[in-house]
């Protein structure tokens, strides 16, 4: 019978925690930049010229129908032949942003489309400026509508970041790989890493739930 040996894992647990911090940082950076991309593309899809709409549609379909692993290989190994040479960490961030952007666009677009035209007209009638309408009349209620979808997409993004370890970018999975090759306790190391990922996703779900209560507590008009 196999003897489980968690001692080396516990001894180097701080390494895994550093890795976890890198994963959180990478995920949050990718989410924030990805949201900007998403809002821009969602705007382009709903209000932009036809050619821009087609380009954005193509981008979304390509990203959503190919594996993230292939996307990151393409960016890290393929882009240098186009003259774009990136470090593993920047390639990882770029791949995550590009990937999140495609899913985020569809989510934000659904939110924007849920805003009734009469709301925008009411905004005009109240004398709001165009940016004010975009911010208060369209984006804020739209974000509230799609908030649950966005947060679960963030969790999905965070779990996806584990893949960036294959191009030797720094994250929790990479910290696990390093520890694994130093201790040879593969199963124990990956059990610990998996549990940290689980704790991260449970923790972020709770955090997002609390944020939702705080940020969107004004009454819902029907």
């Amino acid at each position, binding site marked *: 019978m*196999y003897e489980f040996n968690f001692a080396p894992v516990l001894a180097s647990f701080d390494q895994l925690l550093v890795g976890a911090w890198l994963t959180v940082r990478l995920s949050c950076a990718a989410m924030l930049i990805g949201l900007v991309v998403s809002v821009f593309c969602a705007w382009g899809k709903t209000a932009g010229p036809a050619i821009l709409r087609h380009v954005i549609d193509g981008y979304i*379909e*390509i990203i*959503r*129908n*190919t*594996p*993230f*692993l*292939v*996307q990151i*290989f*393409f960016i890290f*190994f*393929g*882009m*240098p*032949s*186009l003259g774009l040479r990136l470090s593993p960490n920047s390639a990882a961030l770029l791949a995550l942003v590009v990937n999140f952007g495609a899913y985020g666009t569809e989510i934000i677009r659904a939110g924007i489309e849920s805003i009734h035209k009469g709301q925008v007209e009411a905004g005009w009638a109240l004398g709001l400026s165009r940016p004010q309408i975009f911010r208060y009349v369209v984006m804020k209620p739209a974000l509230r509508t799609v908030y649950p979808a966005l947060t679960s997409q963030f*969790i999905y993004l965070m*779990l*996806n970041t*584990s*893949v960036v*370890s*294959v191009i030797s970018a720094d994250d929790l*999975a990479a910290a696990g790989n390093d520890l694994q090759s130093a201790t040879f306790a*593969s*199963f124990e190391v*990956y*059990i610990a*890493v*998996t549990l940290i*990922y*689980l704790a991260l*996703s*449970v923790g972020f779900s709770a955090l997002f739930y609390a944020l939702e209560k705080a940020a969107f507590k004004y009454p819902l008009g029907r």
Partner: protein
Amino acid sequence: MIRAFGWNEFLVIVAAAQWTIALSAIAFAGGSVGGLLVALMRVSETRALRLFATGFIRVFQGTPLLMQLFLVFFGMNIFGFAINPWIAATIALALHASAFLGEIWRGCIEAVPKGQREAATALGLRYFRSMRHVILPQAARIAVAPTVGFLVQLIKGTSLASIIGFTELTRQGQIINNATFSPFLVFGTVATVYFLLCWPLSLIARRMETRFSRATAR
């Protein structure tokens, strides 16, 4: 020696798609059986079964697929089986699919109006026959579109099997890339093959979804 990326290399990559398809099909078949069990446990009257299914879903939806593959891969060794990427990938992906399909199908079972179950009970049908003849056929109609949508996710997920050394589409691409060093062409080809596998399914799922929401509107 660096080989050029030619017609033969292209064909080798395309041919490797059969392993991606085979792995997806087996994982989907296993995941369907597991998913049905998880969904039924999730809507069961017994608290313990519900808790077990909820925990199972939480764990698989809250951890990366890559870690699930690693754990099955290294875990098999611990439990005395020879390390075999094929079997490890199949088991991990089937468990992964069970959790996701279980959660999708739970929603579909719960979407069947409660009166149907009550009517079945009133007609004297016990659990098994009311599920078999009344609830599941109606839930299945709702389930088709999101299930096809998940199949796309599963096909993309099989690419991670390359990391534990199973030679499917992505790994074949890496091997060819190591020999030809034309990553742009190689991974472009690999991505195109995935796209051709996944895109039709995405279109079907979307069409069924809009048709279904139109049919059930009001």
